[in-house]
Every structure is written in structure tokens, then in C-alpha cells.
């Protein structure tokens, strides 16, 4: 279970999260929605442990452990995974090499055996196929020259390979056409399980047609302004964020 209490966080000395509360029980999928600039990505980065995101007050616990006390590597090992809104490019590093380094680092830190080359290749091919990823893509340098859809599918591939227990997806649908949204959503749904919690951040309701959340939280000006069932997302589709923009002003 993820418990966020009264979370305050600064970026460049400016307060962005202003007392955010959110509880995500194990096995559930919650959507976080909200207007641009409401702090969605900031929340995602704080959860993953990005260093220039300074927590000034509040607590975040993950299965009772203080998440904020861990460095980003430790969080990844503990099962936190962030699918980036803007995945980074690393020139010269083949995607496959990156995946393998990540998988083996995490396995080693979790006390599991590293995968042999054939086992790893089988594992990757199987997961990549489900995401309709062309094996040729995995030979290219990480995210370099990838299309928007390729980048996002690559994020979900990493999620599938690292087998996290807390998945944070930051606007994984943005910039994708409807077919790509479906592929990504199928990939995410395949990972839903009673042991895994997911925080699906999105600006649009569209994604939630495919990934149906247990609850929806609307972020506004660094706080959860409203929470509700999946119907809340549909309501927002009609009314937009005007109500919440007002609050943010």
C-alpha cells in the first residue's frame, strides 16, 4: 500500500506540491488527473526520488517503509517504477544492453540470480512481442530517434521486465494515436495483478476507457482536489478542468 500524507515539495525553491494526500491500496489502479501544471509529473518524480525535487513536509510510505529515505536506485529495487512522460535518450547504448543492465542490476540487488544471455533474450522477446515492438528497435541506441509511440512502448517494456510492485505511469498516452494507446493499455492491463499497485497519470479521460481505474483523483494546485470512482473521469470529460483551474488560480 502506498500512503502519501500531507506531501509538500519544492522545485527550484518554488512550492509545487502543497499538502497532497493519497492512498493507493495494494492491487488497485488509481488514476491521477488534472490540468497542465497541477503537479502530476512532480508527484511522479518525487515518488521516484528525483534529486532536485525537494520534499519539505509530509510522508510517503510504501508497504510501511519510508520511501523518501531511499535513493532512486533503492526505490527501483524495492519495486517502484516510473514510466517517464519524456523518456531519455542515451546515444551509443543499445536498448538491449540497457535493458539487460537494468534487469540484472535489479535482480542482483533483490538477491535473485542474473539471467543468462539466452534466458534474458527469451524473456525480452516474449514481452516485446506482446507490445508489438519490432526486435530491430531493441538494437538501436536507447530512445534515440524513436517515435513517440516507440518510446512509450519501450517504457512499458521496461516495466514488464523489471516486475515492479508500484507502477507510476506519467502521461503514457500523450502524443499517441488511438491504436498506440490501445497497445500500451493492453500492455499495462496485462501487468495488473493483486500484488501490483498502479498510479496512472493522465490529462485525458481517453486512456481510462482502456485502463479502467479503481479510483480517480483530480490534482489541482498541488493537492488532491477531488476523488471518486471511474465515473469521475467521465464527468471531467464533459466539464473539463475549468472548475479546478479556478481553484489553482
Amino acid at each position, binding site marked *: 500500500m502506498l500512503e502519501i500524507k500531507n506531501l509538500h515539495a519544492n522545485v527550484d525553491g518554488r512550492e509545487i506540491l502543497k499538502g497532497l494526500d493519497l492512498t493507493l491500496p495494494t492491487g488497485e489502479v488509481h488514476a491521477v488527473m488534472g490540468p497542465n501544471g497541477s503537479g502530476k509529473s512532480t508527484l511522479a518524480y518525487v515518488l521516484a526520488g528525483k534529486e532536485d525535487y525537494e520534499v519539505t513536509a509530509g510522508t510517503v510510505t510504501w508497504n510501511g517503509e519510508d520511501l523518501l529515505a531511499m535513493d532512486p*536506485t533503492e526505490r527501483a529495487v524495492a519495486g517502484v517504477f516510473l514510466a*517517464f512522460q519524456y523518456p531519455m535518450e542515451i546515444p551509443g*547504448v543499445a536498448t538491449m544492453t540497457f535493458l539487460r543492465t537494468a534487469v540484472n542490476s535489479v535482480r542482483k540487488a533483490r538477491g535473485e540470480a542474473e539471467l543468462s544471455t539466452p534466458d534474458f533474450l527469451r524473456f525480452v522477446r516474449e514481452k516485446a512481442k506482446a507490445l508489438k515492438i519490432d526486435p530491430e528497435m531493441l538494437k538501436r541506441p536507447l530512445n534515440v530517434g524513436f517515435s513517440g509511440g516507440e518510446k512509450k512502448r519501450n517504457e512499458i517494456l521496461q516495466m514488464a521486465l523489471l516486475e515492479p510492485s508500484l507502477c507510476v505511469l506519467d502521461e503514457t498516452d500523450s502524443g499517441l494515436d488511438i491504436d498506440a494507446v490501445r497497445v500500451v493499455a493492453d500492455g499495462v492491463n496485462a501487468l495488473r495483478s493483486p500484488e501490483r499497485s498502479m498510479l496512472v497519470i493522465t490529462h485525458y479521460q481517453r486512456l481510462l476507457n482502456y485502463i479502467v481505474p479503481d479510483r480517480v483523483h483530480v490534482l489541482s494546485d498541488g493537492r488532491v482536489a477531488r476523488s471518486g470512482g471511474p465515473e469521475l473521469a467521465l464527468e471531467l470529460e464533459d466539464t473539463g478542468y475549468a472548475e479546478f483551474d479556478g481553484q489553482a488560480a
Partner: protein
Amino acid sequence: MPAVQETVARVREIDVDKYKYGFFTDIESVKAPKGLSEDIVRFISEKKGEPEWLLEWRLEAYRRWLTMNEPAWANVKYPKIDFQDLYYYSAPKSTEGPKSLEEVDPELLETYAKLGIPLKEQAVLAGVQGARVAVDAVFDSVSVVTTFKEELAKAGVIFSSVSEAVKTHPELVRKYLGSVVPITDNYYATLNSAVFSDGSFVYVPPGVRCPMELSTYFRINEKQTGQFERTLIIADKGSYVSYLEGCTAPMRDENQLHAAVVELVALDDAEIKYSTVQNWYPGDKAGKGGVYNFVTKRGDCRGAHSKISWTQVETGSAITWKYPSCILRGDGSRGEFYSIAISNGHQQIDSGTKMIHLGRDTSSRIISKGIAAGHSNNTYRGLVSAHRKATNARNYTNCDSLLIGDKCGAHTVPYIEAKNASATFEHEATTSKISEDQLFYCLSRGLSAEEAVALIVNGFVRDVLQHLPMEFMAETQKLISISLEGSVG
């Protein structure tokens, strides 16, 4: 920028302990008296039993050297070297001249085993099954053993120490020694000509493709001892040879001088591929100690359609001053320079290349990757020139620098001279930093900071790495990680 700061902090922690080649072998040695004089030059020549012409050659260089001044144009700083406070000759007592493996002092074999260098002929390099590499092992001033000689001889390839070649193939040595780097060339090369100790000699006869990788491992062991290696490689018409040198030294508080000269000659249609993995002791974290690596390396593409390719991975030494160059004399000849230069701690690197286009339709390619971390300074200095007669000379240069942290410096100093209007010279240069976001992306996937930096840097140098002989690639990738992190590996 906290993540970068942390990386910088880790890099700064680099401890001398991390230099795993820093041990000293306690072995009795024979030394020349300290200091430099005509008598010392005579002493060295006599120790090696050299012919009169070579002694005269050395003395001429010595006299010339006395009139020269140390170069001051490189972007490096160091206290004045007291050339009288050095030993110019040191040899393990047990090994006066190269022997067969059975006769080599076990203490020396042990040293090379510790360095991970295979001196047993059946041995293979770690992790590479079936790879056979002939090795010439140079310990301080002398070559202690050369492996696979007989097998190479069957192919007609001569691979021995220079000292031995002077005795066995005087006509070849006399013809080519100093023909690429003349004794008047520059301060350190002239010094080397006067006192050069040992190094490798390779001759590949016409039409022969050398059947295995050749390599030399240089080891400075003795205190206050300069190493003045001299390597000479000749690829006769239509032949091919690939050669690799590796270097290590014990950790010492005082600086050690290494002033080598390497000469390559490629005749018509011949090709020489010369790779260096330089990992001399870089000094401690405060910048104390370390090797001064002042080296002159030059290849002469003497014949038409000949090719010389330099690949270097420079991770060690307190100071590196080195410009492996190509003289593109033969029509249609080609020169290449691929470089990875990593500086960390207080290391200073001023390195690059010269591509001198003299013949028609000559081409050259330069790919340089400089990585600076810690308080280090990393300069690429390159010259590309086309002579009046060098019609259709072509060069492509790409220099990329990567900075880790904000206490280090990277500089690119390209010189271009085209005296022939048909020359096409292209130059690209970039300087970037490892970005906070790239690092965070890797960390969030479970990589440690060390792994993340190593991965990003290995990606950055990839274009160059692939030019190293296969056998050495994995080793080199590891070395890159170690030299950057101090805590990886």
C-alpha cells in the same frame, strides 16, 4: 545539480587503492648510475652490446638534446623535471636480454600473471577462448620475453625486442630507425634517441598477413627510472599487421617519466593497425605521483595505397602528451586516428593527432572522444594539413567531449592548413555534459550511479571502441568503468 554532484563526489573519492596495477615487484636490478651524460649513453649502448653506428647515433641525439628546450605549448602544467635525478637504465638482474619462457625469472612471470598478461604460449586472454596473442614483455629498460616467436617466424614475421633486432637484423633496423621520427624531431624524441632502452621490433614481409595479434606490455617497476621505449614496425608491400600495447606502473609518490618513440612504416598496399591501452599510474587523488607520458608516435604511409590506423584508449598517467600521427606520403594512402581519452582526478591530457597529406588522393579520418571528470583537464589538439601536391586530400574530423561535473575542463584545438585548393576537410566538434536527467533515468531503472556513468560513457565512446581488436574490447570497457568510478569493478 545533486546527482551530478554525487557522481563528482564519488569520482573524487578515487583512491589509489583502486589502481589495481600499483604493486611493486621486489626484484634485484642492474642500474646505470643516476643522471645523464655521454658516459651514461655509452653505458646503455655497451650494456646492450650495440654496434658502433648505433652508439654514434645515440651520441648525436644526446648532443642535439643538450641544445634543445622543453616544449611549453601543451596545455599541461608540471614542475620542472630534473633530468639528472633519474635513472636511465634498469634491468632485472636475472634477465640480461630476452630468453625463452622457461628461463624467465618466476618473479617476473608472477608479475605479468598479476597484471593479467598471458605469457604462456598456450594461454588465452581472460574470457576470450581461442584468442592467441603474441606478447613482448618489457620490464623497465629491457624486454624479458617474447612469445610465439617461432610460430611467427614460420610466417616470416620478425617479432622481437629492438635490442635483439639490432643484433639479428641490423640492416632493417639501420634502414628504418629514425626514418619516421628523426633524432632531431622534438625534445623528448631526441632524448629517447639518446637513451632508448627497449621496445618491440616488427617486420612483416611482402604479402604476409600476420597470423596473430602482436602486443607489447610495458611495465615501469623501478623507482626514479625513466622508461624510454622505442618501437619500430615495418609492414612491407601488401602486408598486414595488428599490434597492441598496454602499459602499467606501480604507485609511487614521485612522478615517473615515460618518453617513448614509436615509428611505423607502411609500404605499398600495406596496412598497420596500432592500438594502445594506456593505463600508467595516474597519481593519487591529491594529484601526487603518476607517470608523465611524453610520447612521440608517428606512422609513415610511405607506399601507395598504404594505410595506418591508430586507436588509443588513454586512461592512465598524470600527464599525457601524445599525438599519434600519419604522414600520408603514398598516393591513395589513408590515415586513421580513433581516440578515447579519459581524465579524472588531477590528470592532464593534451593529445590528438596530425594528418599530413602529401600524396594525391590521400584520405584521413579522426574520431576523438574526450571524457573529463574530477579536476582534470582534457585537450584535443589536432593538425590536418594538405601539401601543395596533395590533390584531392580528404579529411573528416569529429571531436566530442563529455564533461562529468564542473571542476574539469575540455578543450578542442584544431589546426587546419590546406595548400591545395582541391582539399576537402570537414570538422565537427561537440561538448556535452552527462545530464542529470539521463543519470536519473538510469538510476530509476535500478542502476547504481557508477553503473549509470559507465554505461553512458561507454555509449559515448562506442564509435571508437569498435575499432579495438575484439580480444581487448571487454577488458577495455571494464577499464573505462574503473578509471571513471574508482568504485566499480
